[in-house]
């Protein structure tokens, strides 16, 4: 079951990376990067639940805060830039 979860997350990460490389505008790349952050959070949580080692879980708390805040910052940057 955990292996299936990791396979699904890997396919999702590949699709997000494709959009990150291709995406025509900066907002597309921000969306894809947000998706990659979500995939990373899910991978950390799944790994911790599988091995019962919680050493990486404070990292999870940090990513859960830093990801959306950086998203908002880049949104302000897009808004200020005349395109």
């Amino acid at each position, binding site marked *: *079951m*955990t292996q*299936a*979860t990791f396979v*699904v*997350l890997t*396919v*999702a*990460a590949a*699709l*997000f990376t*494709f*959009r990150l490389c291709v995406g025509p*505008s900066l*907002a*597309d790349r*921000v*969306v*894809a990067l*947000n*998706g990659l952050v*979500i*995939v990373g*959070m*899910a991978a950390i*949580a*799944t790994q*911790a*639940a*599988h091995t*019962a080692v*919680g050493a990486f*879980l*404070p990292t*999870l*708390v940090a*990513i*859960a*805060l830093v*990801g*959306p*805040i950086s*998203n*908002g910052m*880049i*949104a*302000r940057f*897009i*808004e200020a*830039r*005349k*395109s």
Partner: protein
Amino acid sequence: MIGELLALAGATLVLLAAIGVVRFSEVLARLHALAKASTLGILLVLSGAAINLRDLNDVTSVVLAGALHLLASPPASNLVSRAVYLSMGLEGAVIDERATARHR
């Protein structure tokens, strides 16, 4: 067992959001596809991990991460969509309610 099933369901939601991000044609549609996964998908994965973990310290870390992400992710999506609207406008939209609203 049930925790792993929850994690697999959340990962499937993230995969569906990734397919939507690749397949949809506009920025706002891609953002709409991703915003579902960033709330429901990640909450399913985190609750599955919280069910499987035994140590109380680990469980509180996971619950704190889920609460913070649930608090911070929807306003971030709102900021990004607002920035897209203000910088590019709406392409091919049938109705633009924000442009005709009395209070902006």
